[in-house]
């Protein structure tokens, strides 16, 4: 080889081929056992003597020595706290050739790797369970128990390394090669666990997706396992508010054919949610309708209930109130049957919203109040949410003191994220023409969420209340910058222009607002505001025309 090397290098078709020539020359130059270990070491993302022993069990006795020799090779790097790894570029070359030239061996080593990481995870779990049980038996005081457990964890990090999510990622990374069907199931199940992280960054799930993608991109993983990875990619994009990207990923997933009903049901439901976020309601409805029978086919009650509720939400947004109520009433017993309290609570709150839109305020209040006890069993944020919804009903009922009372109560119960409740209360103060209190709430809400479109809406409304029409338009425009189809902000600009005597501009703004309106009941507040203006300033020009335009408007049912 060496004699022909320069010639071969110059004739190589590309950089990868050139690099493989020298890598192969080095691998071929290694003593037999070291060569075997080098190939095996390329399979996992990192290795130490224990990993290598598991991958080459017949070499266990020599493994320390072989590892020492391996670690001196140029393509081996140290890997903090875990031992070593093969350099990313060399590893890719070795794996590509290994897969093509000896797939059976590749699968066998992957099987051994999966087994190793599975055992490591189980071992850590067993050690932890035993120790925690022991400590729980010894210590009854909860604070001291937690402290002792923490001390024990800090002193036993190595034995507990199986709890590191990277071990689980590594296990599944090998499982999809060793047993693609089991691997696909594992991707689904692990994704379910990791798609709901504390800090909403989804770093573990993203890392998981990236690892399995390595196989997909090199053609080693296909079908179900690949589709589940695509599904979780779509979920992450959606959770990170990248709705257009999420839509693209889910639509790409839909271009494949799979017999996995669960995957197809979940993908349709999630794509429905994405369409919903993008205000593409007919498309959302179509996806939920597609998902529903699939959930029924696999007997997944929670998915079935969520889809029915989501269909109710679409009807509700389109002000198709009898249909919305029917869907909510269909979802409710399903949630109750499986003990899903959150689903039950929000379905009742949505029924209350429907009743409120139908002006059946007593029923709406009764329904919203009935959720408070359930909410208490879930969390303070849900209790606050129940009170917020109750306040919304009083606001619609125009019982503003009661609305303020319940918004305030909601804020007292949950001191966490409450900007939306403060903005809601500011809205009520604005309706009461109480500029001073409205401004206080707006300033407070701004400290928590400075760039929220509804904050800009309220700031614009406050400026209108104070007669600062030019300033108001600037705020409404900021809201529209964030939500281009924000009808309320266009109506706000219309009001600013109308009061400033710019009748033509006002009419255009109201027309723009109408073009982004989905249902008649969305216009109630705007009509009421105009009627109040008319009674205060009967001589103001243009009000009647605009009122006529709003009152005769009908939604485009396309």
């Amino acid at each position, binding site marked *: 080889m*060496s004699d022909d*090397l*320069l010639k071969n290098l110059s004739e190589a078709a590309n950089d990868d081929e*050139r690099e493989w020539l*020298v*890598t192969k*020359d*080095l691998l*071929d*130059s290694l*003593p037999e056992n070291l060569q075997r270990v080098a190939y095996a070491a390329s399979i996992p*993302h*990192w290795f130490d003597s224990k990993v290598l022993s598991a991958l080459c069990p017949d070499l266990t006795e020599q493994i320390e020595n072989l590892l020492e020799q391996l*670690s*001196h*090779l*140029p*393509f081996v*790097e*140290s*890997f*903090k706290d*875990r031992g070593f*790894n093969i350099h*990313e*570029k*060399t590893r890719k070359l070795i794996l590509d050739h290994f897969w093509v030239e000896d797939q059976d061996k590749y699968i066998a080593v992957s099987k051994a790797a999966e087994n190793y990481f599975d055992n490591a995870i189980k071992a*850590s779990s067993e050690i932890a369970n035993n120790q925690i049980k022991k400590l729980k038996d010894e210590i009854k005081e909860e604070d001291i128990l*937690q402290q002792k457990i*923490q001390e024990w*964890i800090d002193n036993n*990090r190595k034995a*507990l*390394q199986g*709890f590191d*999510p*990277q071990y689980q*990622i590594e296990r599944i990374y090998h499982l999809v090669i060793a047993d693609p069907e089991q691997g696909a199931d594992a991707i689904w199940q692990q994704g379910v666990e990791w798609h709901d*992280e*504390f*800090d*909403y*960054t989804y*770093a*573990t799930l*993203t*890392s*998981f997706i*990236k*690892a399995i993608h390595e196989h997909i991109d090199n053609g080693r993983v296909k079908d179900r396992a690949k589709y589940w990875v695509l599904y979780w990619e779509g979920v992450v994009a959606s959770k*990170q508010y990248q709705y257009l990207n999420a839509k693209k990923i889910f639509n790409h997933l839909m271009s494949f054919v799979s017999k996995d009903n669960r995957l197809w049901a979940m993908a349709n439901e999630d794509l429905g949610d994405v369409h919903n976020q993008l205000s593409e309601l007919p498309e959302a409805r179509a996806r939920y309708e597609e998902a529903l029978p699939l959930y029924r086919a696999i007997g997944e009650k929670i998915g079935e209930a969520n889809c029915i509720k989501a269909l109710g939400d679409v009807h509700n947004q389109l002000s198709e109130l009898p249909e919305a109520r029917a869907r909510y009433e269909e979802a409710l017993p399903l949630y109750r049957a499986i003990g899903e309290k959150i689903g039950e609570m929000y379905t009742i709150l949505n029924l209350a919203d429907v009743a409120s839109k139908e002006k059946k305020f007593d029923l709406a209040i009764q329904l919203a109040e009935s959720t408070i006890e359930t909410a208490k069993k879930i969390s303070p*944020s849900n209790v606050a949410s129940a009170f917020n919804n109750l306040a919304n009903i009083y606001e619609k009922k125009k019982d503003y003191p009661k609305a303020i009372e319940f918004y305030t109560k909601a804020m007292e119960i949950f*001191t*966490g*994220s409450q*900007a939306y409740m403060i903005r809601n209360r500011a809205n009520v103060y604005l309706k009461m023409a109480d500029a001073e209190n409205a401004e206080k709430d707006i300033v407070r809400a701004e400290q928590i*969420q*400075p*760039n*929220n479109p509804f904050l800009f809406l309220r700031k614009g409304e406050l400026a209108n209340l104070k007669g600062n029409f030019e300033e108001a338009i600037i705020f409404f425009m900021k809201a529209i910058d964030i939500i281009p189809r924000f009808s309320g902000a266009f109506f706000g600009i219309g009001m600013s222009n109308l009061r400033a005597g710019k009748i033509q501009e006002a009419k255009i703004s109201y027309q723009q607002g109408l073009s982004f309106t989905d249902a008649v009941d969305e216009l109630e507040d705007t009509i009421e505001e105009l009627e109040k203006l008319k009674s205060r300033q009967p001589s103001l020009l243009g009000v009647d025309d605009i009122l006529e335009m709003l009152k005769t408007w009908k939604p485009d049912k396309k």
Partner: protein
Amino acid sequence: MSHHSNRLDRDEELEFFEKMLSGGISDRILLIHADGGMGKSHLLREFVQECQNKIIHVAMDFKSGGISIPELLSRLCDAIGWEHFDNLSTLIQQFNTGTTINISENILLGQNKIAIEQALNAPDEETREKQRVAITDALFHDLRAFPKAVLIFDTFNDCDPVVAKWISGAFLTRACHAKNIIVVIAGRIIPEPALDWHGICHELVLHGIESKHFEEYAKSKGIKVHPERIRGICDAFNGRPLPILNQLEAYNLQERHS
């Protein structure tokens, strides 16, 4: 490169880093861009050596995967010592008022990491962003107490997208205003210099190494190979160290076993 391999020529880069440490130049953010196998991780290890026993420093490699913002902050504070992070600890406690952490259900994640995760937990992205910014402010407030601190991040191309956005944004903006902080970031992809910190940022592209350095390397290791041949291999790979060292090692082994 192997953790044992002899050093190849990166004197210029090392000299630049030394000047940053001594304050001889105003640049405090160093971005090292290099293709795979160019020797950037090896160079960063030399940077760490340079800081050893002299300057507070933390080196982190994103190749291990799954490093979220809480994980990064937790590792950083673990490495330097939480006792130096009063402002950060206080803020985390403030954000976490009313929440409890059950450690027995969160093995190995570490109490501090969970506390940071909970502190950054909010139902909407705007609030989370605001909390991330507040936590970044507190971190740099604490870091300013050191005479000098060096933060080194390797394999930025493997960095989680959310973390990458945070580093390129809030993190480097604050590092720019903390005059005692030096940040080195290396990878096949590096952050795009932003308007507020590009003035103190130096971008370094690692190029191939001249053949003569590989010839010296081979000589020092006792590898008998004609300089002409090394030049040929060096030309084929444009001086990129990894494949050239692989081939020299192949010669070494072939010679030993012949």
